């Protein structure tokens, strides 16, 4: 009986882990052969290497600890596509359908951007960013155990255009 419960928990746990990043993974498959889109995938193995880095300050230690809890990052980006508006609309639609909770949106004349999260028991398991400009489209998924306090620092370190907007979350929480 005990073994059965453990097996059940493991199956549910692995299913939850597989579900993370699934939406972006579908876009990866659909756009695999489309050279207009750059696809980037960073696995948990890569993030685990951060645990081996030497941290100088307390802030660096905290940052590396936050990064080591990440399980993956997937980015799909295009700088010059004619259908960026429809791609943005489709992605936002898919995000809403998949039950993500909106965290923040940024709109200006050049670009629209939306951040959404999936949360479980107070822990953010996935952060999604969808950005759409005149010819630009970005879909990003960061998954694992995400600490909002450190997310803007992670965003700065990753140098992903648009992700720096997350620093506004820090400003609004202060």
């Amino acid at each position, binding site marked *: 009986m005990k073994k059965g419960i453990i097996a059940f928990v493991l199956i549910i746990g692995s299913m939850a882990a597989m579900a993370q990043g699934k939406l972006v993974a579908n876009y990866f498959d659909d756009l695999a052969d489309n050279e207009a889109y750059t696809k980037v995938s960073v696995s948990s193995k890569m993030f685990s290497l951060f645990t081996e880095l*030497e941290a100088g300050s307390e802030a660096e230690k905290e940052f590396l600890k936050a990064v080591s809890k990440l399980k993956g990052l997937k980015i799909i980006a295009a700088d010059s596509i004619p259908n960026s508006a429809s791609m943005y609309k489709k992605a936002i639609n898919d995000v809403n359908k998949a039950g993500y909770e909106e965290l923040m949106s940024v709109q200006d004349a050049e670009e629209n951007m939306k951040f959404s999260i999936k949360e479980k028991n107070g822990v953010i398991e996935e952060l999604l960013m969808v950005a759409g400009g005149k010819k630009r489209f970005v879909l990003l998924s960061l998954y694992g155990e995400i600490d909002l306090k450190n997310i803007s620092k992670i965003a700065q370190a990753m140098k992903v255009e648009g992700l720096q907007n997350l620093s506004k979350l820090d400003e609004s929480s202060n």
Partner: protein
Amino acid sequence: MKAVTNKVTLIALFLGLSIQPLLAQEQIIKDLFETGNEKKYAFYASTLRMVNLTKNKEYNELVNGIDKLLVYSLDSATIASKSYKKVADAYLNEGFEEYIMAFGGDINIALIGKENKRANEFAGYTNMDGNTFAFYLRGSIAWEKIPSLLKSIRKEEFLTFLP
């Protein structure tokens, strides 16, 4: 005398069996890219330290555990056919795990690896300045030294030696 010979044979056999799987992994990249048109570079910890003209300490610590690094500068036919991507599939089939994959547009990067008791192994490909390279690395990399190495590079203490 016979006992000693038997012992030596056993040790040689053990060493051979220990090294054989590693050589088999190395052979995968050789089979894929040694066509006669490629440029091949083989580096060892000693040669990697040798190119560190400024004697950067962090760099030496980073490469000290590397047993072997094979780098193939690929020919135009291999690049055009994108057959270098086979290296990722071949090693993933051997139980290697994905670290980073980036493709599409001008970017083509793959880093896959396998950590085990005998030696860590990494393989992949990358494109830089119009050239595409495939690589295989065996040994351990002192990842913890990377931040201090990057700081040194930013301070220009460490001169670039690569073309």
